[in-house]
């Protein structure tokens, strides 16, 4: 039988160490909504989403109350819209109409975000993929809860450099169209390489074509719990350090597994995966950078950071895998800047640069995330940053992503406030040398060789 010290430990994690379930995300297939008529398509989408997800938020809240564990977000991911809208949409504005419908669904259901305003163009772009991509700036400016993503490369296909170059423009246009809100639109737009089909986390969530009609995916969190566990160790050796991270990750993930199974049972929707991620928030003590510091690096970004992060990421997976029946999504430690107070501190004191963040993305989940850069950064430079990050993902057979925000009207030395879970960020300097000739070449970078690993 459960004893009192175990009960106290669990409740201490929840009340003092920010343990929560970050998101219950319902993935919904919209391929069967497709129609040649835009109005009919929008209607089909509206009915399908509101029918399947009508009880999502209430169910999440009930589970949260019964188990005493906060469930921060309830979200929806959908089939990449470039596939669903291909026969109905003739112009970018047609796609914007779909975005508006999706936003209406999200608001009526009271979900926090709806992801999947997406295109998967890792090898080539169809005409409808390109229309959707060109509609992104307007779609994000006119909606509140829609998240957009574009997958521009993969280990199997190489990198679609035409799409990379286009995304440099799209990021800048999105920033421009949402400049009154500190270019907030870019916080809801991510460019991916090797995007997973079952990711529950935003902004990159979409419901891939390999998935069932509807599915429940859950993202766990808990950097604060790991940090607290490591605080008790002081100068323990690596063996004990790693064991402690694994044990803690196991406990965190078990809660996610329980919530996922309950949500799946109550909603009558199959359980998909648990995403084993350490997802920070701007709350004090809920920081991945603080764990790095606890491992023994003075500030995130100092020498040793990449190794410490590699160790952390691997142990979180090792502990989490045993706690869950199915693991997927992004699974790893997230290192966003604006959403992590420890990262913000590291940037402000000069310890952390974009180049070091890029190195860190080689060993952990995702990539350059929630980084504010000067508003006058050129589209070609942004395309170059995207290409670099995609190359890391392609060669290392992992997911990488870029979610950077060129904040229009601001420059290095200033900062930007996004509010809520998106946090705030100092504007970081970007290398000012040009990559224009490189990114303006047409075509794609071939897939990498899969042997002779060096």
């Amino acid at each position, binding site marked *: 039988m459960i004893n009192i010290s175990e009960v106290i430990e669990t409740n201490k994690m929840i009340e003092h160490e920010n343990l929560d379930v970050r998101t219950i995300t319902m993935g919904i297939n919209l391929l069967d909504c497709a129609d040649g008529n835009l109005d009919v398509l929008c209607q089909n989408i509206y009915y399908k989403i509101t029918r399947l997800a009508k009880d999502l938020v209430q169910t999440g809240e009930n589970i949260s109350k019964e188990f005493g564990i906060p469930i921060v977000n309830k979200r929806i991911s959908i089939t990449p819209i470039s596939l669903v809208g291909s026969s109905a949409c003739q112009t970018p504005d047609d796609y914007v109409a779909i975005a508006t419908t999706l936003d209406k669904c999200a608001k009526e259901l009271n979900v926090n975000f709806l992801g999947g305003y997406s295109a998967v163009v890792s090898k080539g772009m169809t005409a409808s993929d390109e229309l959707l991509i060109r509609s992104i700036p307007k779609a994000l400016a006119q909606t509140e809860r829609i998240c957009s993503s574009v997958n521009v490369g993969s280990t199997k296909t190489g990198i679609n450099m035409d799409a990379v170059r286009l995304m440099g423009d799209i990021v800048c246009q999105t920033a421009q169209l949402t400049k009154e809100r500190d270019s907030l639109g870019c916080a809801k737009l991510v460019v991916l390489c090797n995007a997973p089909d079952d990711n529950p986390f935003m902004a990159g969530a979409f419901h891939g074509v390999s998935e069932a009609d509807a599915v429940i995916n859950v993202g766990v969190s808990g950097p604060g719990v790991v940090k607290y566990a490591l605080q008790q160790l002081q100068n323990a050796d690596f063996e004990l350090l790693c064991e402690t991270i694994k044990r803690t990750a196991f406990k965190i993930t*078990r809660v996610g597994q329980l919530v996922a199974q309950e949500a799946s049972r109550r909603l009558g929707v199959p359980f998909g995966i648990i995403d084993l991620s350490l997802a920070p928030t701007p709350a004090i003590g809920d920081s991945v950078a603080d764990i790095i510091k606890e491992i023994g690096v003075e500030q995130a970004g100092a020498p040793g950071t990449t190794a410490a992060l590699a160790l952390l990421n691997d142990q979180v997976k090792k502990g989490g895998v045993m706690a869950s029946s199915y693991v997927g999504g992004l699974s790893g430690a997230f290192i966003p800047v604006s959403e992590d107070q420890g990262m913000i501190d590291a940037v402000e004191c000069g310890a952390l640069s974009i180049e070091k963040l890029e190195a860190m993305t080689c060993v952990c989940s995702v990539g350059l995330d929630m980084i504010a850069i000067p508003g006058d950064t050129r589209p070609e430079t942004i395309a170059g940053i995207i290409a670099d990050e995609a190359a890391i993902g392609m060669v290392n057979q992992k997911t990488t992503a870029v979610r950077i925000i060129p904040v229009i009207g601001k420059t290095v030395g200033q900062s930007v406030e996004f509010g809520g879970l998106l946090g705030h960020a100092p504007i970081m300097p970007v290398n000012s040398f040009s990559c224009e000739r490189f990114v303006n070449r047409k075509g794609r970078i071939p897939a990498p060789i899969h042997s002779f690993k060096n």
Partner: protein
Amino acid sequence: MNRTIITVVGKDTVGIIAKVCTYLADNNVNILDISQTIVQEYFNMMMIVDMARMKKPFEVAAGELAEIGKQLGVQVKCQREEIFDKMHRI
């Protein structure tokens, strides 16, 4: 069986257990186990109870117990047992 863990945390005072137990008895909730300890000068009590024969919905009982806690100046929480089982047992 519908096993639930009730925890009471706060400054020790007269009648905490009595008040909580009276509420449970009035609502047909059977107490399976009680233990208590002092952590950092705070009174910590844990009850394992069976709510299978309770008529009220879970969230109503949880709300009413929290209210009783407020009157006593302590925090009373109700959580289904599975969260602890899952976390601490393989």
